[in-house]
């Protein structure tokens, strides 16, 4: 029997739900800046930790992060992994590097891609900078940054990245 003839041991039950997502005010403020090519973190008034991308709160203190903190698009790799499987719906061809990006002045990292590098040379602590899509393609998303690429600056000791409440 060909594959189609084998009696299916299941029946299909299609479920399709439509939703509207509305970005909260903290996220909207951040994405409006990203649309213009700026990265603006949000700081905690109590412990001064800077969050990017911000969710509107500092889980250390349980308060709203209402201080706007402009950041550069430079930073370092806090850690990374070389991925050998594709991302559903993303044209990128494995192997590619997915890294925890720690922007200068930020106190948490976020996941993004690393390109323009020989994968064997990738290491924790490397200095990197964002490579942006052409300005006319910018939307409200960190996908405006195509990936991060290495820059010629001395490595960072990631142990120093651990946030300490001053």
């Amino acid at each position, binding site marked *: 029997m060909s594959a189609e003839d084998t009696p299916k041991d299941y029946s299909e039950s299609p*479920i399709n*739900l439509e939703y509207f997502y509305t970005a909260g005010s903290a996220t909207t403020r951040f994405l*409006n800046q990203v649309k213009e090519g700026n990265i603006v973190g949000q700081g905690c008034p109590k412990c001064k930790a800077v969050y990017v991308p911000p969710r509107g709160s500092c889980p250390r203190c349980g308060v709203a992060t209402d201080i706007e903190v402009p950041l550069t698009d430079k930073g370092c790799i806090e850690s990374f992994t070389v991925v050998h499987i594709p991302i559903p719906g993303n044209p990128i061809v494995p192997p590619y590097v997915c890294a925890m990006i720690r922007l200068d002045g930020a106190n948490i990292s976020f996941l993004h891609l690393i390109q323009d590098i020989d994968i064997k040379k990738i290491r924790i602590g490397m200095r990197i900078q964002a490579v942006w899509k052409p300005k006319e393609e910018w939307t409200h998303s960190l996908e405006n940054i195509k990936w991060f690429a290495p820059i010629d600056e001395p490595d960072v000791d990631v142990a120093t990245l651990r946030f300490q409440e001053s």
Partner: protein
Amino acid sequence: MTDSKDLLRAPFELAYNYKRSSGPVMSEFFEALGQQKILGTKSRAGKVFSPAAEFDPETHESLKEMVEVGPGGSVESFSWIETPQNHHLIKDPFAFALIKLDGADSSMLHMIADCNEADLSIGTRVTAAWSETSDKRITDIKFFTLEK
């Protein structure tokens, strides 16, 4: 609060074609629908549940014995929809109803169509109307119609 024009609002979809396995009792029920027969399960105390339930709500026993019921039955309750919504399967005015099929002790939630609201009341006799194609799902019963 940012006023609405600054809000970032975008639609998104949560969609999947789930793969349901029915298990022994329900597979037998769905197989029978393929032959335009409706089955129920009978408990040790003789109570018949249709559509064929896997477990008895009161005694918690698992139910295995199958009996045929229907295809006719009486309306235990119904709710009439004059303007169906987009995800309703029937586009003209219809009713959701609890139908106690002949030979069953519990009633089946399904739909009644091809009639007017005034035709329906608790106790009205209805019978199964089968869909043209059978893919061994509850929708093989297209809806119920008034018994002639």
